[in-house]
């Protein structure tokens, strides 16, 4: 049963991990995009639509990615080109996204598709316990991990990543050094949007293979929390995502064990856990904050 629980946790954590990875890059560049939930749900609607129309999961995933990137483009134009307040814009994006996804998805409700296939390597997948976990998952799970590793390499092992981090820590200096801060942030925001769209698409393409309005159920907000929880570091992001997924799954199992605790309390555990964890994490940072110092501040290059 432990293996089955681990598999469930992996699947539940994957959309959180993908969305949070994208938001991490966005925030590292200095932009706070609260519209993750809106981008995810539009990704879900378009992803499902694409897969249903074309019959291919890959096309669906691409639709989701493009949809998320386009949503984030709206955000980018507002906050980067027009220097609008990022918090307000992000919230507006979420509201818009929920409405747009309802309109787009209305035509697809009640339809179903074949969910993304799981990997199967004869011999490897059959290894007891680790076989299914390592070799028996669907492509999204592997992609989420590859994405995370890729982002880590990018941020810490490439010059471009260094420049991006610089833009997030001190945009004035970065600009003075000649780096195109706004363009860097544009790419970071769109990468974040693409990831959010992909994460949203994962839900109807692999997790529950149909589209229902509102199916993201707040996961975008949890992804935002995860980025802070992880102190903006990719390695910790993975830990956070799986931890959160675990709490969500385990509270259901705990019910089946009839522990006699009110089910509402169990359902609230993931959220309480985030608040409780944020406190020591943030405290540890008061010495030298690891948040990108320019996060959320408006930048207008002077000429």
């Amino acid at each position, binding site marked *: 049963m432990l293996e089955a629980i681990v598999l469930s946790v992996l699947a539940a954590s994957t959309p959180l991990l993908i969305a949070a990875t994208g938001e991490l890059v966005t925030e590292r560049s200095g932009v706070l995009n609260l519209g993750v939930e809106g981008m995810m749900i539009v990704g879900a609607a378009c992803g499902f639509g694409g897969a249903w129309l074309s019959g291919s999961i890959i096309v669906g995933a691409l639709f989701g990615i493009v949809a998320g990137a386009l949503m984030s483009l709206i955000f980018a134009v507002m906050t980067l080109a027009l220097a*609008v307040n990022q918090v307000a814009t992000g919230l507006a994006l979420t*509201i818009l996204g929920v409405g747009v996804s309802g309109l787009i998805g209305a035509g697809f409700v009640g339809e179903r598709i074949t969910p993304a296939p799981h990997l199967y390597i004869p011999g490897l997948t059959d290894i007891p316990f680790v076989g299914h976990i390592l070799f028996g998952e669907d492509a999204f799970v592997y992609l989420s991990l590859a994405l995370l590793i890729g982002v880590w390499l990018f941020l810490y092992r490439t010059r471009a990543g260094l420049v991006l981090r610089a833009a997030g820590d001190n945009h004035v200096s970065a600009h003075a050094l000649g780096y195109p801060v706004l363009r860097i942030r544009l790419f970071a925001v769109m990468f974040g949007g693409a990831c959010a769209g992909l994460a949203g698409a994962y839900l109807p393409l692999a997790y529950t293979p149909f589209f229902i309005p509102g199916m993201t159920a707040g996961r975008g907000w949890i992804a935002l929390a995860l980025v802070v929880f992880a102190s903006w570091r990719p390695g910790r992001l993975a830990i956070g995502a799986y931890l959160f997924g675990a709490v969500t799954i385990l509270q259901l199992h705990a019910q089946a064990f009839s522990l006699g605790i009110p089910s509402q309390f169990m359902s609230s555990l993931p959220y309480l856990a985030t608040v409780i964890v944020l406190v020591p994490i943030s405290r540890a940072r008061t010495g030298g904050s690891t948040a990108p110092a320019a996060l959320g501040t408006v930048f207008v290059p002077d000429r």
Partner: protein
Amino acid sequence: MQLVLEKRAEQSRTIALVSPLIAIGLTIATMVILFAILGKNPLLALWVYFIDPMTDGYSLQEIAVKATPLVMIAIGLSLCYLANVWNIGAEGQFLIGAVAGSWLAVKTNGTDAGPWVFPVMLLLGAAGGALYALIPAICKVRFGASEILTSLMLVYVADLFLDYLVRGPWRDPNGFNFPTTAEFDPVATVPLLVDGGRLHLGSIFALIVVAGAAILLGRMIKGFEIRVVGAAPRAARFGGFNSNQLILLTFAISGALAGLAGIIEVAGPVGHLQPGFSPGYGFTAIIVAFLGRLNPIGILIAGLFLALTFIGGEQAQIAMKIPLDVTKVFQGILLFYVLACDSLILYRIRLISTARQVPSGNA
């Protein structure tokens, strides 16, 4: 050719007055296109959304009833946002305020309690909301934790707590085990203002709150401190303003207003406590705050306007079968345009040819 933003030497006053109108105009233009795409008559749709609800007394009352919690919460939020702290958890404070006030209603239900019940319920509601809002505020002040995330997470916790209370300890014993408290006694209900409608005392409270905020921000030192702490934190420090204290204060006020709105809503239009009684007022109020540009009168107008679109959206569903999602799209687009047009107050948009760009690079 490149589009650049140039900071204005002084905020443009004409734009400040005109930008909301431009924003509304742009929104209406976008909505006309959207209606056309959906195959609905655009002019009729606009009429149903914006004009029709203002044509009869019932709808006008409903607009006021819907706007009341929005305006109250948004005023509180505006204080936080002016101080540059982001209270996203107003929905949770709304719910906890409702719970706190309802405690007294449930306790005295069926007993012959006097008219002191209602005012005390209001006080409890405000106190409950304020205390709940202080949690993220203290986390921020003492531990530096992001108030956006803590206040947001607490919304979910509040929702589940309410659910637990109403399904468990506070469940109406005569209610066939259904998840609702008993109907509140008349002493525990918000008095109505007009017979035959739902307009209630809460709307008067909302107006008082608007006036209070206008006085606070316009004429009182504390209001000035709040604004400076948000706009120029260094200057605030030099001025000796204690930003921590202001964070706690603005959150507490915001929570109190949200909590007050919560208990008024429950003891008024709803009449008992039940799970899911809030259609997301705490979040809609955030839009109202921004649409009102964090200004008390602006918020009053924005709240009424947004309430108008909710009512209009419902009527559009009935009369023209326009899906409710369109209302959300409209609200999102409106906010976008208002924010974009507002940036013109601070910045000027210029098109320059790239040849003129000062070459940048390592010197």
